[in-house]
């Protein structure tokens, strides 16, 4: 225990300091950032994530083989990792290093596009759904219908009707994924819609879009970020599942699911075919998940000083 007089000491009265205490320079995003930086583990994870993304480009640049001119050569198949083939070769004798990093890039790109699209559509429709009472029934019914038809059936029908490509995949995933986000936003909008300050705002004649963007949306930021953080791993997972089942990307576009599908019969004998892509993609998803959670905590105004 320290003595009382070590803990406290008297200060001279200074008008400047008094002024400084009285003035608050609170800024929402600044506090979010400061709160986030306080979590050392999350900052570390963020660095790992960004480093991996940057390295996926570096890795392709320094690779000895270019993804575009890979040749099938059965005599080179199943070479364990060595100085020539850093991640070994697959069953067709193609360099695995460039395939793995290319696949990681594809997965991240797709996930980012899909999640941003989902967010944009989900937030807009969620706000309208929650705010306009007359539309609630319509959207709820729409939600019930879309939600009760298995996702796989949409994916199969879309892949059969339009074909399999990166753009089709992104659009079809967005066209289903916005629903969860919209539902989430709608529930929150309903909570805040009839608070007294919004009532007052409406009486003063504030237009709806202003009430939504200025009065309600700021409360949703942390929830939206949390949704984003969980959505990215989910999207990467869904994409790899679909590709594994042959419903996602085409066979010639490498992604985690395609790599695992190609090595399905052989990764028991040659575990490196599983370990490298799995480790990289899992690191990406786990770090993003943790960073997103930490950032969402930091974005919650209740945690601000």
């Amino acid at each position, binding site marked *: 225990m320290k003595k009382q007089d070590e803990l406290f000491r008297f200060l001279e009265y200074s008008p400047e300091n008094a002024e400084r205490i009285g003035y608050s320079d609170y800024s929402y995003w600044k506090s979010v950032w400061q709160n986030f930086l306080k979590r050392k583990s999350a900052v570390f994870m963020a660095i790992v994530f960004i480093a991996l993304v940057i390295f996926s480009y570096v890795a392709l640049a320094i690779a000895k083989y270019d993804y575009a001119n890979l040749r099938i050569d059965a005599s080179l198949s199943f070479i364990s990792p060595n100085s020539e083939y850093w991640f070994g070769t697959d069953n067709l004798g193609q360099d695995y290093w460039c395939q793995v990093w290319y696949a990681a890039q594809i997965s991240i790109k797709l996930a980012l596009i899909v999640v941003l699209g989902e967010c944009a559509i989900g937030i807009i429709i969620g706000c309208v759904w929650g705010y306009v009472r007359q539309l609630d029934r319509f959207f709820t019914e729409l939600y019930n219908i879309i939600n009760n*038809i298995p996702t*796989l059936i949409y994916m199969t029908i879309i892949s*059969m009707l339009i074909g399999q490509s990166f753009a089709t995949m992104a659009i079809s995933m967005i066209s289903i994924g916005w629903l969860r986000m919209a539902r989430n936003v709608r529930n929150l909008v309903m909570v805040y819609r009839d608070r007294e300050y919004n009532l007052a705002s409406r009486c003063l004649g504030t237009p709806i879009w202003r009430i939504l963007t200025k009065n309600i949306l700021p409360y949703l930021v942390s929830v939206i970020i949390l949704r984003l953080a969980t959505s990215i791993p989910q999207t990467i997972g869904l994409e790899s599942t679909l590709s594994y089942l042959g419903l996602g990307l085409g066979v010639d576009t490498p992604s985690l699911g395609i790599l*695992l599908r190609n090595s399905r019969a052989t990764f028991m004998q040659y575990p490196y075919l599983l370990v490298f892509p799995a480790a990289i993609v899992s690191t990406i998803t786990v770090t993003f998940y943790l960073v997103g959670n930490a950032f969402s905590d930091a974005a919650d105004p209740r945690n601000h000083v």
Partner: protein
Amino acid sequence: MLKYTIKRLLQSLFTVFLIASIIFILMRMLPVENYFTEDEAMNLTEEQQQDILEAAGLLDPLPVQLLDFYKDTLKLDFGTSRRIQKGALVVDVIGDKFTVSMRNGATALCIALVLGVLLGVGQTLNKEGIIDHFGTAFTIFVNSVPTIVSFALIMVFGSKVLGLPTLYSSRKVMMSSIMPIFCLSLGSIAGYALWTRRYMVDELNKDYIKLAKIKGLSRGKIMLKHVLKNAFVPLTQYLPAAFLSTIGGSMLCETFFSVPGMGPLLTTGVTKYDISVVQTLSILYASLGVLGAFLGDVLMIIFDPRISLLTKEESR
């Protein structure tokens, strides 16, 4: 209550009807050439193909086909499978497979419920301790690592270290079901643990728990009789839906371990243009989903008599 039930059931019926119609129309949007296998497309002449399509009623205008579909469904005639098991009644095709899916799914659900709730309780009792950190790490792992990667890891571990068979076989049902069941339960264990912990921690901070402590009730009694019981109520809402959805099986798990279940049936049906199978399955899944949500609400009322659906409906 009765009035509410009837109203709700009618609404559900309407939802199922809409879903079935939408799937029907979507299936008709697929190119009709898929109706034939490659062999048939090669061997049959254009005219023969047209005749077959005509006989199957696939060339009629869409409203006529839709009406025929409603009539057949009302008569509970779900048609015959065309490509998956040629000529077999759809009901039989599904009947063979759903027992396998449901047995695996229900076992996995029971395991997940017991382990998940136990882990959640353990985490709450040992808050900020080893069990809690382990549980959190486990939840993060399951939620963020792609499912297919964890399946592959389990497969490699299970077969290399434990010597379990990697493919399902009907001769060794017990042994070859272990890994699929474990894979199925993994995600739910994490889910139940997460929510049990969350609800229990919320409950622990309430005033009546403080009163119970002051009265001198033992910790075990408080945890079991008060905290867990109340924390379990929100979980019960999703139990019937989870149980019913086991009938549908899991596409990924069953493909991965070659389990002859319901999971892959739907997509195979779509790709092979086996219309009657797809339609029956979509009606089945939609009804199960709607029924599950309804039973969930009922179960929640039984567990917690304070909840009433009627007031909830009015306050909206």
